[in-house]
């Protein structure tokens, strides 16, 4: 009898798993259960929809016909319980679905605002297309917004609202932006760009409470007693995986649902993938969380392999994210900063915990106006890099870091002359590619 696969979640982890399962098991029954009426769309793309760079319809990377052709059964409902022994998934509307293999790909949600008044009309987090549409509608008839939080999403909110013609106040709890990944110089570059775009930055500013009138936000009050009038308070203080289903079923969780390298949870025939999964890495011996789209996709594909009986471990690679931070192209590779960021209570979107695993290392900096390369040098390898502005070196650096290339031949030269760094890295990477081309 054909296998019965059930996937909870229509994000990239769930859909990538469904596509991979269909390719491996043409006759299998595959069911997607999702509470999101909008189905599958590019979640990172929401930031570009907010800023008006793309229209809403551009967010959908699969057409209705594409999804139909996959032969999926699509169930729009919230999953509430798992009967682990009976292999049954229970839905909020009372329906039951039996499964042979169940994939939990429920993602993460933005942490709720942590101040009094956080439930007022006008307070936003950005998780779904529904959130983004509500925020765009609100922005179209608002003139002032306050943004709090850190990481890329907070910036995207600030820039997106600003692009919609709203005057934006960006409140930072500490002395600078994204202090656990960027160094002081990099933070200031970003802040300068934001300021020159017209965003007002407030440092050492915490929201004491959001103030409302008849349930509607009218201002925020900061720790210092200052009141900033606004119709929008947008909050991006980190994300939390949707753990309720797993917890209730007695599946082992830590910050996410714990899985082995094959995406298997502690319960039989139940797997987890994407933002919700805290996946064990055989090489480092650590289980970590990521909130990255390409990682979620890779998890989904690896989970499908396990579900269809051909397990292949998920191979963690050096985490890398390229994005525009305040319009400066920026690539973050491997382990960089350390410690915590006051503006975040949990891991930020477009973030990886591995970026904060930086061991003490030499820091080399090469800077030209907005062009900047920062390397974290270990004894024999480069453990992390940040490339701002000119992106020529980002791909070669990613290759060298991911492959843990032995850079001892140029290590002394790198330390001796920081200005020679770009040429040294470029030449070394070229040479390294040539000698490793046969393995590529």
């Amino acid at each position, binding site marked *: 009898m054909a296998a019965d696969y059930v996937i909870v979640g229509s994000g*990239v982890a769930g859909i990538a798993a469904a596509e991979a399962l269909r390719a491996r098991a043409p006759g299998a029954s595959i069911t997607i259960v999702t509470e999101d009426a909008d189905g599958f769309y*590019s979640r*990172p*793309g929401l930031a*570009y929809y907010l800023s008006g*760079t*793309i*229209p809403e319809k*551009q*967010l959908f*990377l699969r057409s209705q016909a594409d999804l139909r052709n996959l032969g999926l059964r699509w169930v729009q409902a919230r999953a509430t319980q798992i009967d682990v022994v009976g292999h049954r998934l229970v839905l909020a509307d009372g329906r039951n679905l039996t499964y042979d293999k169940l994939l939990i790909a429920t993602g993460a949600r933005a942490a709720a605002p942590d101040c009094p008044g956080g439930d007022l009309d006008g307070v936003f987090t950005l998780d779904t297309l529904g959130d983004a549409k509500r925020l765009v509608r609100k922005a179209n008839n608002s003139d002032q917004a306050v943004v709090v939080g850190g990481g890329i999403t907070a910036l995207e909110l600030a820039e997106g609202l600003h692009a919609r013609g709203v005057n934006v106040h960006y409140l930072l709890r500490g002395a600078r932006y994204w202090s656990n990944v960027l160094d002081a110089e990099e933070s200031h570059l970003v802040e300068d760009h934001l300021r020159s775009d017209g965003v007002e930055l407030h440092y050492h500013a915490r929201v004491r409470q959001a103030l409302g009138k008849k349930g509607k936000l009218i201002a925020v009050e900061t720790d210092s007693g200052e009141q900033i009038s606004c119709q929008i308070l947008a909050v991006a203080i980190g994300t939390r995986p949707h753990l309720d289903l797993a917890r209730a079923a007695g599946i082992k969780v830590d910050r996410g649902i714990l899985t082995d390298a094959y995406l298997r949870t502690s319960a039989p025939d139940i797997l987890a993938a994407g933002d919700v999964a805290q996946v064990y890495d055989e090489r480092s011996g650590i289980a970590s969380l990521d909130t990255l*789209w*390409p990682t979620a996709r890779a998890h989904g594909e690896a989970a499908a392999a396990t579900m269809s009986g051909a397990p292949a471990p998920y191979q963690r*690679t050096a985490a*890398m*994210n*390229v*994005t*525009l931070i305040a*319009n*400066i*192209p920026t*690539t973050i590779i491997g382990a960089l900063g350390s410690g915590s960021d006051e503006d975040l209570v949990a891991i930020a979107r477009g973030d990886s915990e591995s970026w904060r695993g930086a061991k003490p290392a030499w820091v080399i900096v090469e800077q*030209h106006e*907005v*062009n900047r*390369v920062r390397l974290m040098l270990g004894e024999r390898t480069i453990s992390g890099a940040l490339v701002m*502005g*000119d*992106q*020529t*070196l*980002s*791909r070669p650096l990613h290759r060298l870091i991911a492959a843990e290339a032995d850079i001892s031949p140029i290590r002394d030269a790198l330390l001796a002359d920081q200005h020679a760094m*770009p040429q040294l890295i*470029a030449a070394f990477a070229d040479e390294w*590619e040539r000698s490793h*081309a046969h393995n*590529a």
Partner: protein
Amino acid sequence: MALTRRSIHFDLTRADVLASGHVQPDPSLCVQCGICSYNCPLGLDVRDYAWRGAPIFDGQCLTCGQCVARCPRGVLAFARTGMAQQVVPLRPNPKD
């Protein structure tokens, strides 16, 4: 300013690419936002190439560079056809 510098250089690389290059995506960076497809003057579904990691060998592609220039994630680059390893950087000299 960064954009102007980028587009000037772009025209220079373009001439080269028109003769001998194609657009090569790196799927490990792509967030499937669709900005590339949205800006392709020929309506090619660049995003789908990026999902598959497939080079754009479509005869229709003008190598106009719109998708490369607008991708906010550095997914797309011009590569010399037949030399997959050699990526033509937008600005070859980081010190310029």
